[in-house]
């Protein structure tokens, strides 16, 4: 998978679980290969790994570009899916 596509997938997966697992385990669970550029960050939570990658001057332009693409979808959603599911379950 090209780096651009992988970053896009990862940003979306972070909406499901971005903090309490490692990048490696999230990728493994969804059958996504950890991009070579993020290999040193595999042991970190995915959102943290992406934020650290963003401080890399070479990766930053691509990450920003992908962020702009993902942002539209994020804004279009009323709220996060995992939360709406949880609320519905608790109210049943």
């Amino acid at each position, binding site marked *: 998978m090209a780096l651009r596509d992988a970053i896009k997938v990862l940003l979306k997966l972070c909406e499901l679980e971005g903090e309490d697992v490692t990048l490696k385990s999230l990728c493994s669970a969804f059958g996504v290969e950890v991009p070579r550029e993020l290999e040193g960050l595999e042991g970190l939570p995915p959102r943290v790994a992406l934020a650290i990658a963003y*401080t890399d001057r070479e990766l930053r332009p691509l990450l920003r570009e992908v962020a702009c693409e993902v942002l539209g979808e994020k804004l279009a959603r009323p709220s996060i899916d995992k939360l709406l599911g949880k*609320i519905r379950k608790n109210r049943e």
Partner: protein
Amino acid sequence: MWSYPRMIKRGDKFDPLDVAKQTERMVCRNGARKYTAFYATGVYGGIATGYVVGCCLRCFFCWTDFSRDFPEAYGEYYTAEEACENIARAAKKWRVTKARISGGEPTLCRKHLLELLELIEERDEVKLFILETNGILFGADESYVRDIAGLRKVYVRVSLKAGEPEAFEARTGASREFFELPFRAVKALLDNGVRFHVAAMTDPRIMPSEERRRLIERLAEIDEFLAANLEEEVCDPYEGTLVRMQFYGLDPVEFFGRKGLGTT
């Protein structure tokens, strides 16, 4: 007469910088800070944690224990050396390499925090230190951000509470004129090359969708990536949350639903 704010009711408001100073008088002493515990927990995939006492906001949905509201009654003072030792020991015991300060606001007691972070830099047990903050003090004084910018293990998580000044005041008790401070912190962290991401309490039971949208757009104006990588927080029924919510005038059973109450 000014009194120290504890739990808030609707309509309460205060100056968070003043509350920060008042709280510091209760939880900081000669470079030491009050902590209630050192342990490791499963969040972030496993992290050693020092639980500090005291905060400068009074969010009605806050999950922490009652040391936030009664800082004078909880915790023991630890020097930066003692805190570092305890955090490193917890990391070693639980075989984790990440560490953080949680519970209270870590940026209170600046001297203590900076000493602790310097000491953490030297410890092999900790590879990454996550600083979870509400951004009030970083936003009020950019030199504080510059102080941490050179530390290679520090990673910051800024948690936003609202996307509008009125909502900020209603949820945190901090006067609306301080609403900009966390956003200023975000800008300062970005400008100073600190590694960080932003979180926000966007739970739709607390934040209306229009406000969430404005918050994300506001973040995107600062930086699109920060907005796309926003961590959206969920309000869970911790004991402290239930009591604060009830005091605030919200019925926790109505808020969480009967089944939801027993889920933490």
